[in-house]
């Protein structure tokens, strides 16, 4: 026991005395969350649009007011003729044009159907889709408010409702993703680097030729990073809740327990990596390319998995991060209990056990 403690003490010395790694370990998560929470967002604000009102009646005016009142749009100009539309787009001044048909109000009241044309600058297709979606929802919303409780039999009601995230806030997706990424980097990458460093500097030789049991060496490497990861989870969640305004709908305890499981999984992964490489550089490369990149691309963090080709979807199942992100979203955003996440939890448990087993098998008690 004394051996374990003195080992852990040594590991903390290594970490605390290296100012650069301290910066990465504690500063990075904070930076990431702030970046993703505020600066980088898939949302659109104040997109420049143009309105061509061929009707100029009370209805169109109301719709236009509603649009003007939205933070998404900024009515940059009012067009008068169709020819102006082209020019407005070509000069790049607007990304969307909303065109009301002539006699809009008349058509609506007499035939119960009138049309609005939405033209978007699709040279940025994602943007265009988003803008169209925003505009459509606003118009549909207005349509619903018009109709009131009496629905005419042949009107098709499209009800658009954004569940859990009515304002479509980006952070709901980014916070779990950031957590998955940070924890993986700290627990897996830093742990593997710490273990490999002993190999590289030659101190591992001395440790091996001593009564100390090999598993003790490994555990003592993992403990500091476990603690640091835990601190990071706490700080990220605090930031998310109090600064970014994200709710925690489900049980906080369950959330923390799941985070701990994921940390264990990442530590086991770090162990596994350390048994497979012999230089710190290699450990870092494997972690960055083998872990960080796939997590960013394939875990569902930035891009929806459902949109990916089949083979990438299969690949994403191998990433612990993917399962963890699902768990966090279920608990944090949907407020589900264990019954909603038992499948994913099992997967993570299995991965952890497998990695630990493999690492134990591969840990070399001798050189070469």
């Amino acid at each position, binding site marked *: 026991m*004394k*051996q374990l403690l*003195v*080992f852990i003490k*040594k590991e903390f*010395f*290594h970490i605390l*005395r*290296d100012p650069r790694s301290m910066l990465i370990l504690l500063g990075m998560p904070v930076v990431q969350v702030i970046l993703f929470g505020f600066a980088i967002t898939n949302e659109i604000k104040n997109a420049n649009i143009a309105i061509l009102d061929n009707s100029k009646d009370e209805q169109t005016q109301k719709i236009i007011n509603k649009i003007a009142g939205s933070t998404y749009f900024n009515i940059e100009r009012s067009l008068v003729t169709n020819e102006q539309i082209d020019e407005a787009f070509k000069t790049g001044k607007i990304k969307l044009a909303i065109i009301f048909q002539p006699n809009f109000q008349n058509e609506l009241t007499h035939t119960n159907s009138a049309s609005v044309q939405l033209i978007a600058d699709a040279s940025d297709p994602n943007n265009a889709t988003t803008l169209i979606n925003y505009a459509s929802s606003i118009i549909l919303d207005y349509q619903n408010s018009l109709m009131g409780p009496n629905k005419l039999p042949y009107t098709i009601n499209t009800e658009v409702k954004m569940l859990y995230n009515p304002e479509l806030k980006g952070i709901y997706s980014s916070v779990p993703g950031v957590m998955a990424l940070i924890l993986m980097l700290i627990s897996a990458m830093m742990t593997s680097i710490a273990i490999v460093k002993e190999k590289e*500097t*030659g*101190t591992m*030789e*001395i*440790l*091996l*030729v*001593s*009564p*100390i049991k090999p598993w003790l060496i490994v555990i003592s490497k993992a403990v500091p990073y476990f603690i640091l990861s835990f601190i990071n989870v706490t700080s990220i969640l605090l930031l998310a809740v109090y600064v970014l305004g994200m709710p925690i709908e489900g049980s906080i305890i369950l959330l923390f327990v799941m985070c701990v499981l994921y940390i264990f999984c990442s530590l086991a992964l770090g162990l596994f990596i350390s048994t497979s490489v012999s230089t710190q550089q290699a450990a870092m490369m494997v972690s960055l390319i083998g872990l960080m990149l796939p997590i960013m691309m394939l875990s569902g963090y930035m891009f929806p998995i459902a949109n990916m080709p089949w083979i990438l979807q299969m690949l994403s199942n191998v990433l612990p991060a993917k399962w963890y992100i699902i768990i966090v979203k279920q608990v944090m955003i949907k407020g589900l209990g264990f019954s909603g996440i038992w499948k994913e939890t099992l997967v993570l448990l299995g991965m952890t056990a497998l990695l630990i087993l493999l690492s134990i098998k591969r840990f070399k*008690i*001798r*050189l*070469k």
Partner: protein
Amino acid sequence: MKAVNVENIVLSYENKKGKTIAVDDVSFEVEKGEVFGLIGPDGSGKTSLFRILTTLLIPDSGKANVCGFEIVKDYKKIRQITGYMPGRFSLYQDLSVEENLEFFATIFNSSIKENYGLVEDIYKQLVPFKKRRAGKLSGGMKQKLALCCALIHKPQILFLDEPTTGVDPVSRKEFWDMLARLKNEGITILVSTPYMDEAKLCDRIALIQNGKILNINTPEKINSEFGKKLFAVHSEDMYKLLSDLRAFTYTETCFGFGENHHLTLKDDSVGVEDIKIYLQNAGHKEPVVKIIEPGIEDSFMQLMKSN
């Protein structure tokens, strides 16, 4: 019981060059309490041999025992009683002197207090620096710290792999003085070194080259097996002397040895005067020629040649 018993150990490894034999059928014994030197240049197999004896590598074939324990089966027991200093300083650079020592004492289930007497002489020199980061010590100090850490748990046997390489002559001498004092504690010490002059500080030595042992004995006995007359020759122009001696018909070997060149001849009957005459004729004004006793380096070079 011998402290170390090695029988026909062979170790080879594969790399870009193909298959290299690191340890080539090596056998020897070390008595308890001996200071045993493994003398040879880089790449001669010293480090590989030490790693085998400290149970870090398994040989391809052969057997070995350390303090009665078998190196493969009983590796755990060997690791409890061994002190090991691998080549080049390898303690924790960002830990202080004190922290390093405390760490190594604890992982060996010991403490600085318990065995302080053993390391006191060495540690006294480090005390003024005890809070300094190990990485900031000079080469000589680092090696002394490493020695302390290897000793702090009072091992039965000490393996020091090139502890004085790259260290200046003064620190080197101090280090060997420390080893001599340790002998009194009954600790068996195996040291490897490329410095031939350190050989005479050992009880017995093994000369090793290309994985093979050239000779094992006390330094004196090895030198007595030289078997030839050895001449030390000096003149004003040493460079010219070298080429002239090499051109001498009777010369077998001629090597620079600092102030003198060491010369061996093919013919036993040729003597000091003959050499002097030859040199004077070659233009050397007052050549100095003496017969000297061979040193370890002379012996080593001769053994190298015959292999």
